[in-house]
């Protein structure tokens, strides 16, 4: 099993070119029998991971059954949120358990934040060289290159 993986910055709007590059990480989220392939925004400024409402529904979560309420901040403060645990698979690495703030907001990216994505993974960014390196330690490492 590798301990390093490389990825590129992802342009989200070709007409905007470099201005639209995002540090997006492809990953699989698994809950019970449901699995979705998504892109998570690596957001070192985010205190927590955030799961958009519709992705949670796709994974089979039922809002009313999630009892741990969370208060988010910033633009997300206006939406209710619940804590959910999801099995995440990144590339060839072994699955990790990520805890997400499942928000009722729908028009947001999946956010990978300090709790607990960056607890599980060490990440380095090399944007100036058009490169993004995700270093996932101690047992995982990812690098992203443009």
């Amino acid at each position, binding site marked *: 099993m590798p301990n390093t993986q490389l990825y590129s910055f992802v342009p989200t709007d070709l007409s905007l070119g470099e201005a639209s590059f995002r540090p997006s990480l492809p990953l699989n989220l698994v809950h019970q029998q449901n699995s979705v392939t998504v892109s998570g925004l690596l957001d070192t400024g985010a205190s927590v991971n955030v799961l958009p409402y519709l992705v949670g529904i796709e994974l089979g979560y039922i809002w009313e059954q999630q009892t741990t309420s*969370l208060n*988010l901040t910033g633009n997300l403060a206006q939406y209710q949120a619940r804590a959910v645990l999801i099995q995440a698979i990144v590339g060839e690495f072994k699955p990790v358990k990520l*805890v997400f703030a499942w928000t009722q907001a729908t028009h*947001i990216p999946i956010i990978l934040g300090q*709790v607990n994505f960056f607890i599980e993974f060490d990440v380095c960014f090399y944007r100036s060289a058009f490169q993004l390196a995700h270093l996932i330690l101690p047992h995982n490492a990812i690098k992203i290159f443009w």
Partner: protein
Amino acid sequence: MVSAELLLTLKNLNRSDKFQIMQILISELAEQEINLIRSELAEQEINLIRSDQDYPIWSPYDAVEAADTMLKVLKTAKNQDHA
């Protein structure tokens, strides 16, 4: 194009005047360089950040209570896994 007459005039200056001319020219060049860099930076800013574009920030910055709650949920789940 520097004229031969100007070059001859400069060559005939004494040492002190030559230094003074040099300082004036270097100072002017530095100012031109700074203005050039400023205009290049301004152009880059215009290219990278557009006034007609929305840039929403969704980061739950400083959501420490939520983070604490989520860590407890995670810890409970891990304890159950090990039990």
